């Protein structure tokens, strides 16, 4: 059994397990709303609301990852492909700690701490020498880290993957408007992530640490010359990014499986988000994460029926999955062609 990246060059021939990791993330879309409600149009409307909420929820998770990536890029000028590995690590830690303590919340909290500490250790050992080097060196070095972490996780936790089950009170659905039931856990994700986004905003804009972070992003030499411990600042920012990634991993773990290579797909989505938003801009990451989450989810939900209406069944069956998977990449390409620096270029950060 090979990890998604771990053995990729040595097996061009297909392997069951490889395929499994390479598949795009499935988006569970319970068609409950279609069955609820009275008339046909209102059923579609309710389905639309539910799917939009799913889109917002995906966007929120992407924001958690993208915020860390874009902070690290904006401040340390580092392209960190290993960010997805921290996301994976967070999910594995959470599954382990939750199983050990018997509490989801406690497990999640411990996982955040453990990943933040791992991230800071990683920064000190492996990332520090890469600062100030060409981006290509970052890509090579952090690509190596992906291979390393995939194998490490396989060594420690085995190849089978894990599950993280929710506390039973989370397994219900709540009625958000008459006729629309929505899983409580997904609502919690949206709300908690919004709270984290608000905290992040306060941290960056209204605290002394945030001031240093912003100063470090605009002129690191000057900040260093003024007596700020830049090395420590960088380590803290990396730890913060790691904690945010772990948070995303923990929140997503009960919905999807905890498995090796889970970071690779989501990393690319997060990269798309920061590129659309403008690299280095947290505000841009937030807006872009919502756009990407909504377009991806709504595309998957509504493109197939739309295409069915216009095209023959076979053509629609072939085209719809490809088109809906491609939609965000087409969006990104279109945005970059029109605005080569993203929606919120870092200068206006």
């Amino acid at each position: 059994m090979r990890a998604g990246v771990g053995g990729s060059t040595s097996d061009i021939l297909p392997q069951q397990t490889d395929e499994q990791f390479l598949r795009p993330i499935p988006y569970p879309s319970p068609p409950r709303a279609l069955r609820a409600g009275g008339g046909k149009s209102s059923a579609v409307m309710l389905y639309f609301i539910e799917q939009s909420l799913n889109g917002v929820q995906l966007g929120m998770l992407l924001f958690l990852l993208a915020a860390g990536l874009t902070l690290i890029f904006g401040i340390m000028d580092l392209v960190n492909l290993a960010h997805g590995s921290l996301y994976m690590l967070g999910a594995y830690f959470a599954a382990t700690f939750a199983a050990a303590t018997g509490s989801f919340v406690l497990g999640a909290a411990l996982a955040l701490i453990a990943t933040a500490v791992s991230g800071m250790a990683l920064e000190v050992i492996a990332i520090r020498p890469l600062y100030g080097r060409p981006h290509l060196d970052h890509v090579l070095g952090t690509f190596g880290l992906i291979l390393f972490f995939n194998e490490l996780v396989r060594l420690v936790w085995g190849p089978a993957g894990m599950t993280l089950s929710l506390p039973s009170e989370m397994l219900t659905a709540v009625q958000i408007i008459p006729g629309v039931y929505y899983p409580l856990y997904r609502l919690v994700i949206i709300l908690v992530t919004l709270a984290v986004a608000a905290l992040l905003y306060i941290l960056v804009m209204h605290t002394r640490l945030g001031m240093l972070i912003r100063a470090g992003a605009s002129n690191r030499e000057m900040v260093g010359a003024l007596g700020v411990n830049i090395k420590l600042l960088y380590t803290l920012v990396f730890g913060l990014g790691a904690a945010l990634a772990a948070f995303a991993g923990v929140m997503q773990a009960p919905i999807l499986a905890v498995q090796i290579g889970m970071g690779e797909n989501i990393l690319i989505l997060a990269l798309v988000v920061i590129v659309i938003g403008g690299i280095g801009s947290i505000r841009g990451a937030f807006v872009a994460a919502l756009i990407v989450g909504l377009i991806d989810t709504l595309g998957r939900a509504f493109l197939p029926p739309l295409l069915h209406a216009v095209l023959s069944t076979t053509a629609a069956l072939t085209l719809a999955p490809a088109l809906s998977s491609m939609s965000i990449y087409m969006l990104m390409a279109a945005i970059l062609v029109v605005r080569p620096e993203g929606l919120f270029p870092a200068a206006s950060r």
Partner: protein
Amino acid sequence: MKAALAFLHKQAPGFLFEPNTGLIAAVLALLALVPLYAAVAGDPFALTLFTRIVIMALAAVSLNLIMGYGGMVSFGHAAYLGIGGYAVGILWKEGLGSGFLQWPVAIGASALFALVVGALSLRTRGVYFIMITLAFAQMVYYVAQGLDRYGGDDGLTIGNRSTFHGLVNLNDNTLFYYLCLVLLLASVYLVSRLVNSRFGLAIQGARSNERRMRAVGFPTFRYKLVSFVIAGALCGLAGALLANQTNFISPALMFWTRSGDLMVMVILGGLGSLFGPVIGTVTYLLLEEALSRVTEYSGLIIGPALLLVAIYLRGGIEGVFRKAAP
């Protein structure tokens, strides 16, 4: 003596007189003797392994043209590998098994795709360029996943290798290997002629200072676009070879980590050196193979090794030998 060397350097194809001719000669000798070893030692797997190495080296050489010489960091190069492969697979499935059709289509389709991608992507710079090329590769990946007639997610097994109407029989593995090797050397030669021409100097100039090149009057966009298309076409050829070797194509060929692997091979060997990508590919794939025989967890060693290369080996393996050379 020095003057004579300098004269030769100017006249001969560049790669014959690189400072580390010894290393290059050793690698070439190794590659040339593989079939002999496989026959003598009764180890047909060695031939399979090295055929793949040679094909991937061809892809790495094409990436090096734009990444090493042109400074265009394409993070979606595996897409061309996939397009070349799918051209062969799709044509075979439709009953067109002739290599005279398959291979030109593979090259042409990749070149066309590179033209579109390049025309749009080359407006962006730096990390944005890396990401937009990645985005286009992901699109092709998802298109391939949606091709249910050609295997979709599971891939397509190709019944037989391209036929060349009696000219060459690709089912002869030794012959196929040497064909791949010849194509690899031909592409290295092509790249060496390109980068030492006025065209090549223009794209290298654009890499170091594009604004200045434009001020001097070079339409850098067109130069870069042409080199982007050439690289895509070469990589498409590598894709066609790969599909022939494995008799199998699947979207996994184009997953982004495959593009990452190609970048690793180029950087590991030596960015912007003619034989660097070949050396890098041989090293990377042999190391991976050797480690996977010793330990189940090869990534634990390869990963940190890549990190160390990124930190300490500027110029890659080839660069180290170049510095060691007098």
